[in-house]
């Protein structure tokens, strides 16, 4: 029982007449890195805000770190580190002042030591008097992470932490995340990047407020029951147009210089591709569907009922 850091069921949230989160059911095990994926406006941020007690769910029940999400949001806040999507520390405070303020808000004992240690670990001791607003994007993100780790939370909620950060800083950031996970901290992280999704222990895919799939990356892919072929040849844009009209081809996506064609009806798609190969002489190779193929499939499925 206590091995679940987050265990919520049937969580709903409406803003006016917009149903932003529908029946969210989520179980995150202690110490794992849990990826939260889905298109923009799918309810990821709202879900995270409800988990850390910033927003009150309209209905639903569950626990976060063993505390009731509806009634004990104050106690949850003390043990959760929440990193907002946009840099939300104070631009007009220095690096040290920002950390000190956050430490005070959490009523920490040994505040000064904790701040100094955080500065050392960040490698920002020499720049402690610099205004936070003058930091570059990558440094802001590291500072924000340090600020939400200051009070030694057991659970980290990271809302698109790597948006707008360069690839090296992104890689460093994820190494840090894995270190924290190894130290026993549970991490829920929302992202749009496939490589980041693959680094998570388990995933949840949410679209239009509803949870569509959960599990490890391979479970999510397998759950879609897709059959995928990779197609390479000249003028793939033209090929893509042609493929979209073919029987059995549910989705066509560009992957660099190649195309991924996927469908759930294996034999129909295979027939279509055989004809195409005979007509044009392009290379057709069966591959295992990638996570991205699975997400495209999930997103399409979510859109269909709306389009109808």
């Amino acid at each position, binding site marked *: 029982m206590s091995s679940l850091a987050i265990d919520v069921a049937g969580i709903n949230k409406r803003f006016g007449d917009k149903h932003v989160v529908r029946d969210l059911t989520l179980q995150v095990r202690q110490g794992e890195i849990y990826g939260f994926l889905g298109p923009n406006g799918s309810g990821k941020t709202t879900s995270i805000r409800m988990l850390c007690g*910033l927003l009150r769910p309209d209905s639903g029940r569950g626990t976060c770190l063993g505390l009731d999400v509806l009634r004990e949001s104050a106690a949850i806040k003390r043990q959760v580190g929440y990193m907002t999507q946009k840099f939300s520390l104070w631009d007009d405070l220095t690096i040290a002042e920002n950390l000190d303020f956050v430490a005070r808000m959490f009523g920490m004992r040994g505040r000064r030591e904790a701040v100094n240690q955080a500065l050392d670990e960040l490698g920002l001791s020499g720049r402690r008097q610099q205004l936070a607003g003058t930091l570059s994007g990558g440094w802001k993100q590291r500072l924000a992470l340090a600020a939400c780790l200051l009070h030694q939370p057991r659970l980290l909620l990271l809302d698109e932490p790597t948006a707008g950060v360069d690839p090296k800083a992104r890689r460093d950031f994820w190494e840090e995340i894995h270190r924290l996970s190894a130290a026993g901290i549970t991490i829920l992280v929302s992202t749009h990047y496939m490589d980041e999704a693959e680094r998570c222990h388990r995933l949840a895919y949410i679209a239009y407020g509803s949870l569509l799939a959960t599990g490890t990356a391979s479970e999510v892919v397998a759950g879609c029951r897709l059959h995928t072929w990779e197609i390479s040849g000249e003028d793939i844009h033209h090929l893509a147009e042609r493929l979209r009209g073919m029987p059995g081809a549910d989705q066509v996506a560009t992957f660099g210089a190649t195309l991924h064609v996927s469908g759930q009806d294996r034999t129909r798609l295979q027939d279509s591709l055989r004809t195409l190969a005979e007509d044009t002489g392009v290379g057709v190779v069966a591959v295992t569907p990638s996570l991205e193929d699975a997400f495209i499939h999930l997103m399409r499925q979510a859109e269909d009922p709306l389009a109808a």
Partner: protein
Amino acid sequence: MEAFSLSRWIGILRKEFIQLKRDRLTFGMIVGIPIIQLMLFGFAINSDPKHLPTAVVMADPGPYARAYVAAMANSDYFRIVGQVDEKQADELLDRSQVQFVVTFAPGFHRDLLRGRSPTLLVEADATDPMATGGAISVLRSLGVEVFAADLPGLQRRPTPPVDLRIHRRYNPEGITAYNVVPGLLGVILTMTMVLMTGLAMTRERERGTFENLLATPATPLEVMTGKIVPYILIGLLQVTLVLLAARWLFDVPMHGSLPLLYAVVLLFICANLTLGITFSSIAQNQLQAMQMTFFFFLPSMLLSGFMFPFRGMPEWAQVVGNILPLTHFLLLVRGILLKGNGIGMLWDQVWPILAFMLVVLGVGLKTFRRTLD
């Protein structure tokens, strides 16, 4: 150099108008401010106020005294509110309930008939010299005409028929600074307190730091009060600066108790901070908070009696003016500093400020809860 493109230029114009239309508050300002200014300057403001409330102390009732009072009323500058005794008259002046007290000395009737120029004492509340100027000059020309019909020999006498003595109470020399400097206390506090708190909260929201603050265990009460208290201190500092200047630069008399003054100032600061916080929970960004402050500040300046005599305004403008805390604060400050009013005489002005504060607080709490969730 590219040629001026008309279609591109029209594109920019169009975009500007669309954005203007979306920003309701700015649009409201553009239309509202000229209308408000027209109404205020055109109709409400009158620097030659008439119908000023006047109490009469009649030590010697007689036909001439009555004729004189009637003539005052006919001049349109005075509105006779009734007869009182001397003690009541003093209190009415102290409480700013009348602008003038006219006292007919004992033996007025007899002395007038005998040509002895009886004393006619007119006491004016001269805290605002502008408010009484017109009425006093009318009074000076009144004496002879009133009695001319009944006392034919009057014009040939060497001395004037009555010895008109005008006492400018609280400000005998009619120094404008006595009125303006205490008034500035209120104006400065209104401006800075409402604006600073309005910006303090919207700034957090605009920059996204509010979310961070809410993610910590800090409670809304801690956040609100923690953000307000620094401004209370700033307000008290401002007051101290103005008072020092009033005392040493402008020689404004300070008859009342300073602790009492500071207590009143504190109440006024709280009322303005409440308004600022409420603005900040309604406003979406700092610009809107500033616009709201301006919207409130303009009538406060013009309708409170700071710039123009309160009693010169028509009824509706006085009703609006009475809602504003500044109107009452001005009376309180002038009452304490210039008239030496004690704690017992303040309630008339204190309760409207309290009422304003409670109503605004109610609105603020309602909107604050909504924006949190």
